[in-house]
């Protein structure tokens, strides 16, 4: 399986994501922001970082990068896409996912480990998990406070599109939401960083539960 990782100016988890893809046993493919080409990948990870310095608003400029046009086509035709942290922000700015990520309620950047519960396994990025499974995952963000209007939140809950939920809410997110999926369920955005816990050498490979899920769907 070929998994692409987008690289925007200012992405800083791109190399970590590429490394994690190798650890999950797939081929890692770098997708340069200036190339409107997904290089025939089977899935895409939009990694964390500070694309374009987070200037204007996190993700607001990245969504206009050349690589986003084919990425949006890929997403709309059902291709698996995972946005992590800044990647989640990019996907909401691109309207591939509902809602927005506001500044943390503490107004401070937070880097910590948080416990989350898997709420839905009906996505390519959680298919290998179990409903109700608890994972401890790292977070590192300044704008992780998930916001959507009441109707959207109700709809997300109703359609079971909340994918991960915080057990201890670190940032003020509505409904303790740590991750959501698109209507088609193939596009997932999460604030926690699974790629940071993908190697037992660093003490945990809980993140592979999420990343390897995409291989389940592909029958690998």
């Amino acid at each position, binding site marked *: 399986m070929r998994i692409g990782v987008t690289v925007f100016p200012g992405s800083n988890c791109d190399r970590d994501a590429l490394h994690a893809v190798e650890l999950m046993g797939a081929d890692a493919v770098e997708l340069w922001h200036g190339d409107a080409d997904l290089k025939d990948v089977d899935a895409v990870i939009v990694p964390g970082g500070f694309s374009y310095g987070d200037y204007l608003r996190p993700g607001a400029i990245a969504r206009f990068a050349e690589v986003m046009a084919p990425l949006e086509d890929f997403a709309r035709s059902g291709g698996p896409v995972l946005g992590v942290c800044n990647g989640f922000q990019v996907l909401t700015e691109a309207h591939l996912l509902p809602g927005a990520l506001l500044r943390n309620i503490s107004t401070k*950047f937070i880097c910590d480990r948080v416990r989350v519960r898997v709420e839905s396994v009906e996505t390519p990025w959680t298919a290998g998990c179990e409903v109700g499974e608890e994972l401890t995952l790292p977070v590192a963000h300044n704008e992780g406070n998930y916001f959507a209007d009441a109707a959207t939140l109700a709809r997300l809950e109703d359609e079971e599109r909340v994918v991960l939920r915080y057990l201890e809410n670190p940032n003020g997110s509505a409904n303790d939401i740590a991750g959501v999926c698109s209507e088609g369920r193939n596009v997932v955005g999460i604030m926690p960083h699974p790629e940071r816990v993908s190697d037992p050498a660093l003490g945990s490979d809980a993140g592979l539960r999420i990343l390897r899920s995409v291989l389940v769907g592909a029958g690998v």
Partner: protein
Amino acid sequence: MMGRPPNYLELSLFSVMWSEHCGYKNSRPLLRRFPNEGARVMQGPGENAGVVEVGDGWALAFKMESHNHPSAVEPYEGAATGVGGIIRDILAMGARPVALLNSLRFGPLDEERNRYLFREVVRGIGGYGNAVGVPTVGGEVEFARSYSGNPLVNAMCVGLIRVEDLMSARATGDGNLVVLLGSKTGRDGIHGATFASDELTEESESKRSNVQVGDPFAEKMLIECCLKLLEKDLLGSLQDLGAAGITSSASEMAASGGVGIDIEVEKIPRRETGMEPWEVMISESQERMLAIVEPDRAEEALKLAERYGIGGTVVGRVAGHGDLRVRENGEVVGTVPADYLADAPVYEREVVRPSYLDEVVELDLETLPQPEDYNAVLLTLLAHPNLCSRRSIYTQYDHQVGTDTVVLPGADAAVMRIKGTQLGFAVTTDGRGRHCYLDPRGGGAATVAEAYRNLSCVGAEPVAVTDCLNFGSPEKPDGYYGLSECIEGMSEACEVFGTPVVSGNVSLYNETDRGAIYPTPTVGMVGVFEDVSRHATPAFKRAGDVVVVIGSGSGVSLAGSDYLEIIHGRVAGEPSAPDLAAGKKASDLVREMVQTGLVDTAHDISGGGEIVAVAEMALAGDLGIEYPEGELERMTEGQGHGRSDAALFGEQSGGFVVAVPEDRWDDLQDALSGFAYDRIGNTGGDRFKIGGLIDVSLNEMRAAYERNLSETPTVAEAGG
């Protein structure tokens, strides 16, 4: 040497280059005392950073640098650009920056100004480091009145590089092109280096314009671009633009290569109009690098810079004449011999022992009442800003980006792996300002010893040192004496430990109208692992583990201790001189026990003494401990010399606490044969109990210890 008076532009060049910050004119003779050779040393002082070999073809480049003065007047940008500057020093060696640390000092948090400086410095470090994508994995912070209004912000960076890819900042090759990479040049930071070489006064507030402004996004692109340029072998040499801007970079590159450089000043891209050539030459605009490129590779190099969205401009040429020549539209507007500029005059000063030392060492323990409530004392110590948890700080820093952080912040040292190998490295930063104030030589040695112990605790073999020498004015006897004595103590320790000083920085004139700071050399020490999976952390790991204190305790004393300052409000006494040979032996033993896998739980005894060290281990592991019956009495008789407070909270340079499962107790005893040690109990339960004096729950301890340092403390807690 020039045979004529310099013009205004030339004078500006001298003004910045011969400042203490760039020229080390007061400190250079003293710095020669530092040992700087060792088996693993590939690059000692003289380049942008020191470099040591790890193994398997890997090397580490590292350096620490101060940004004290800018942070005093503009704390967010001062701290942020301190981080940016040290990253570029590492990048200039050709290394990928992989870890950041910092040593910070502030005045007590009971003053609004200090709270502001603390909050904004931490925010600045995070704001830059988080965005640039280099993890901030460790550091230290202390609060004392002497730093009020004159905070210390020392940033350290470690970079990883293949041995064969090591770069130099030496300009060579007549006719080679000088290429400026990165941001455009503005008026920010003009005369930053001279500003940093003066005392801080009320007028300093008006020097905000001397402080540079950082753009971590530009730096991130500069890092990736330079690493790609190096990978494609397009650069001959590389130098960052820091203090004194292009002037310093170009003259240092020329001087070390024994050549000259012609700068065509009108070609330097600007972000402001109407800049004079001298302003362009000494601007400290951030996120810029200077590279020497062979003419036939220039086109490819500039194209690559464009791909990364950063500026790349040919701004001059290497020339045989040995001068730094500044031309504007062809006309020479300034000429100075490069080596003359890079070689500031040296002031040798007389070392005079200051009289304050005779007063502060007086400490009559008879006048010191022993506490009535030891539980309250322990909780007060654990809650004090100098001893409490640093969690509220390091959770504001991304400490995991890069996915190489093996041991998260909060341990004795940061532990990092090298991907694709078993290898790893550990880094710590340490400083002991109060100790150096009371005894500059002993404090200097103890600073190095503490770093050596911290690395040994996690299981790394200490290899080399970088330092920041933060002192008051060298023109005053107190300042110069402190500088000279601390260097002597540090040098002695580095010699005994076999950890040469391979890079460093000097920050003098740390004075306000309230006086000078404590003499505060800070040390960044790097150690290596052959197998990084064999490491230890302070947290108790299993109930029932045997807990052992290693060390005779013969030097334990209340002189200069945290207990004395926090509980009794006194900074006094002569701390016992560190026994360097014994300290090395004990540290090496602990490291060996970690490396062989016998010990996975270790912590060094430092501020607050044995009890605070054990309490930290209990809190980190959420496991209590009860000292056995009679132990308190034995301790009081022994290391306490009859006083329980001295036994429990006394300090010395040395001492470790380790824990092992009961079934390894025999092996541990074998390993410890020949060493003084004391079994102090077994882990378990949720209380911390010592004889009839201390009995508190871990929850009470945690409530005191896990405080948010950004919140305003009550007056009672302010202390220090």
